[in-house]
């Protein structure tokens, strides 16, 4: 077993699990050396009061357990990454297991470096990674004797952290971490605010679009994307408006997919222009397509979109399939009193065509600012409607834990195939997912940032603050200045969007001006 029963590190590079109180003074001493001008000790101590969902609760006892061999291996790898990334002269980590009394140290990190900046930064970085990746769990025992294992919603990101032999072990990439420990890997880039539909939930009927010169050029977008990739962004979603109304989007795709560090480029479209462009997009290297389709009845399509075009969307989907796109997703917004009758037909259509269907709750970003919570048809209700028609839905394990959707397979389909689909493999069976931002907010595992068509960084759809990248781009600013802007934007991201709370403030922009 790769654990130690002693609390004393053998050298200044310990990565240990122990069952006794941690001697923090000794740990700090152990990393001191002649090359170090700065030594930092971080200790995490157990708290007597834990914030609960409804109320704070008193904890009388805490017990930690670990998958010990794996925990030791992960700790050692993180230590090595920290030493390499921050040029540390020494680094030691100890985590305690078993019962830990309130107020005692459960984890301690000591770092030393020539200068304090690296020593501080490394300790913080290590703590973030430890909390997310090391297989250690806490069991809280309340005063009433109730035991609760803590399994937070955020945590391991299998897609990003689980590459056993990838080079990330030896050359770690920087990460965009916010004040709540959320790591940001996804950038949504809007390329235009224009659209060839006028969907009520997104855009007003008498819309005034931005002048062209206020939109970022493709050259500017690619530069921002490159800087973002250098900070840990791995996936890019191109949105709008309707991205395909902007000329040569395939050319933008072609440039984005070549950026080092970008693993996936996807695009969300209403499908109207897809028939003409699907093959070009595929050739350009676009990985995935999301097509918005809320209704299969022409009447309702037109009522929602305030334009016609259902037949063109269907032709676009057929063209996308023919072009070789796999894992095509259909996004359908659910609105009470409007879309209930479309739920089963959409599911039948997607099952037949092999598309993955996702229902999205109606959000307060509509063009007419007339959203009320009474119009929210919850994912739960949609699921019940589907289950009544198709039989039970089976929850599906997905490779990408950061995705907001909760996916299900139809019980009469093969579950394993849907799971494989989420991992990017060809879909043989279409599942159905629910994105419930209103009734089941996923803020606690949100990994998204946004760049609006006019070059503003946003850290949330519902953010009321923006960071002006266009200004930096157009006044001769450096890449480092763009990077700083993005880091600032991430740093102050709020814990949650707060819809339904008294403090919620509707953003001044509607969906089409942000990028859905």
């Amino acid at each position, binding site marked *: 077993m790769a654990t130690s029963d002693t609390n004393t590190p053998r050298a200044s590079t310990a990565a240990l699990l122990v069952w006794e109180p941690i001697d923090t003074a000794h740990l700090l001493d152990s990393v001191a050396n002649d090359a170090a001008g700065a030594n930092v000790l971080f200790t995490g101590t157990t708290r007597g009061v834990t914030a609960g969902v409804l109320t704070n609760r008193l904890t009388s006892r805490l017990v930690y357990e670990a998958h010990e061999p794996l925990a030791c291996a992960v700790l050692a790898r993180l230590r090595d990454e920290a030493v390499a990334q921050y040029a540390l002269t020494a680094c030691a980590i100890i985590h305690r297991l078993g019962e830990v009394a309130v107020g005692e140290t459960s984890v301690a990190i000591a770092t030393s470096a020539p200068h304090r900046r690296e020593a501080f930064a490394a300790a913080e970085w290590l703590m973030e990674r430890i909390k997310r990746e090391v297989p250690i*769990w806490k069991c809280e025992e309340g005063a009433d004797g109730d035991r609760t294992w803590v399994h937070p919603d955020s*945590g391991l990101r299998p897609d990003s952290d689980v590459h056993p032999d990838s080079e990330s072990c030896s050359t770690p990439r920087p990460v965009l971490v916010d004040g709540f420990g959320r790591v940001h890997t996804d950038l949504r880039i809007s390329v235009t605010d224009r659209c060839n539909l006028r969907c009520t939930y997104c855009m007003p009927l008498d819309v005034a679009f931005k002048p062209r010169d206020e939109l970022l050029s493709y050259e500017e977008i690619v530069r921002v994307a490159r800087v973002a990739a250098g900070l840990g962004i791995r996936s890019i979603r191109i949105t709008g408006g309707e991205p395909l109304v902007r000329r040569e989007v395939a050319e933008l795709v072609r440039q984005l997919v070549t950026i080092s560090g970008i693993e996936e480029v996807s695009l969300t479209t209403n499908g109207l222009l897809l028939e003409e462009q699907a093959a070009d997009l595929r050739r350009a290297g676009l990985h995935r397509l999301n097509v918005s389709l809320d209704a299969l009845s022409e009447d309702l399509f037109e009522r929602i979109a305030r334009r016609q075009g259902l037949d063109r969307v269907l032709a676009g989907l057929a063209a996308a399939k023919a072009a070789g796109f796999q894992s095509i997703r259909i996004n359908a917004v659910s609105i009470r009193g409007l879309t209930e009758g479309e739920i089963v037909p959409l599911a039948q259509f997607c099952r037949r065509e092999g598309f993955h269907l996702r229902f999205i709750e109606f959000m307060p970003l509509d063009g007419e600012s007339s959203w009320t919570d009474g119009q929210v048809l919850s994912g739960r209700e949609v699921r019940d409607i589907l289950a009544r028609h198709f039989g039970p839905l*089976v929850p599906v394990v997905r490779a990408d834990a950061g995705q907001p959707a909760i996916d299900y397979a139809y019980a009469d389909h093969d579950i394993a195939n849907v799971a494989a689909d989420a991992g990017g493999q060809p879909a043989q069976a279409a599942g159905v997912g629910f994105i419930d931002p209103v009734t089941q907010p996923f803020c606690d595992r949100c990994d998204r940032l946004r760049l609006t068509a006019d070059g503003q960084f946003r850290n949330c759809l519902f953010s009321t603050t923006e960071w002006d990248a266009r200004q930096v781009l157009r006044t001769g600013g450096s890449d480092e200045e763009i990077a700083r802007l993005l880091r600032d934007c991430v740093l102050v991201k709020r814990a949650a969007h707060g819809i339904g709370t008294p403090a919620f403030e509707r953003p001044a922009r509607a969906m089409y001006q942000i990028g859905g």
Partner: protein
Amino acid sequence: MHASRSTSAPPPTADTLRVSLFAGMAAAIGRRSVELAWEGGTAATLRSRLAAECPTIAPLLARSTVAIGDRYVTDDALVPCDADVAIIPPVSGG
């Protein structure tokens, strides 16, 4: 149940996969491991099979990662019968 050092159990038979469980998952089914009849497959298959056999842990399983030996693996990784495989639910150390 707490802070147990790993127990060494007899090796599973050729077509049986022993899957180690931890924390809330072990507590939910009252066992630290489950055995599945296994003809090989990916980590994704393993999770689907486990969810089917132990529905009570399915929601937590959906948020878990698979580990083989001292490495986390992605869902497309192959899981051999003799793998030292564990399900890692969201962690809460620190």
